[in-house]
């Protein structure tokens, strides 16, 4: 996970708070989407047993790492500037 960026000087408390709130909302949304996507992809919905099988575990590992990588790449591209599509 990326370390939280230090608040630059000269920003009021309300602005810092709203920045933190936006960041938190973004993180929560990211986690929810990630969990939902990987659950839908990896877990077979016949639900024979309550625990994750080994195949499910390795599928979830791969899914999360791919999702995270793509998320990082897209975030970087968006922060640099809109690329010509």
């Amino acid at each position: 996970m990326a370390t939280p960026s230090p608040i630059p000087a000269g920003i009021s408390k309300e602005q810092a708070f709203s920045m933190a709130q936006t960041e938190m909302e973004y993180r929560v949304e990211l986690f929810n989407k990630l969990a939902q996507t990987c659950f839908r992809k990896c877990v077979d919905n016949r639900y024979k047993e309550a625990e994750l099988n080994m195949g499910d575990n390795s599928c979830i590992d791969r899914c999360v790492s791919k999702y995270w990588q793509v998320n990082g790449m897209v975030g970087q591209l968006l922060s640099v500037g809109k690329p010509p599509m």
Partner: protein
Amino acid sequence: MAAADSSAEPAAGSSGTNESVTKIEPIRMPTVEEMRAQEVWNNCAVKSVASGVMGGGLGLMMGLFMGALENPIMHDTMTGRQQFIFTAKQMGQRSWGSCKAFAVMGLVYSAAECIVEKARAKHDIVNTAIAGCVTGGAMSARGGPKAACIGCAGFATFSVLIEKFFDRHT
């Protein structure tokens, strides 16, 4: 939220049932020990060694049982005590051989299934079929390629049937 049965107004969720309202447990996140235990048991080596040990135990029991069944009773050549020692030695040999065979079988099957499932990242019946084929082929590889093929097919079918039998509630 959970209303007792003797309350005047009926509870919203249990209007149809006569028994007391079942408590709904909140979703519990796994503790650190549970996660560590899961990591340990996810390891292919640990799993296959444990399966090998269990297979060895099973083989020991079966070998003892089978060895006790067939004992040549020679009343005239040996005394009772000698007969007992002879029978015990034969049972021990038999059960040790059976223990080794079953331990190898359990180890190979568990290792193959673990590796295949990790590689495919899916929990299927195909994993058990492939693992059974590998085990059967490895066990009967001494008889040549044809025997290996037959052993592979036979053991794969056997393990698929056993898995379906133990997995009735779909």
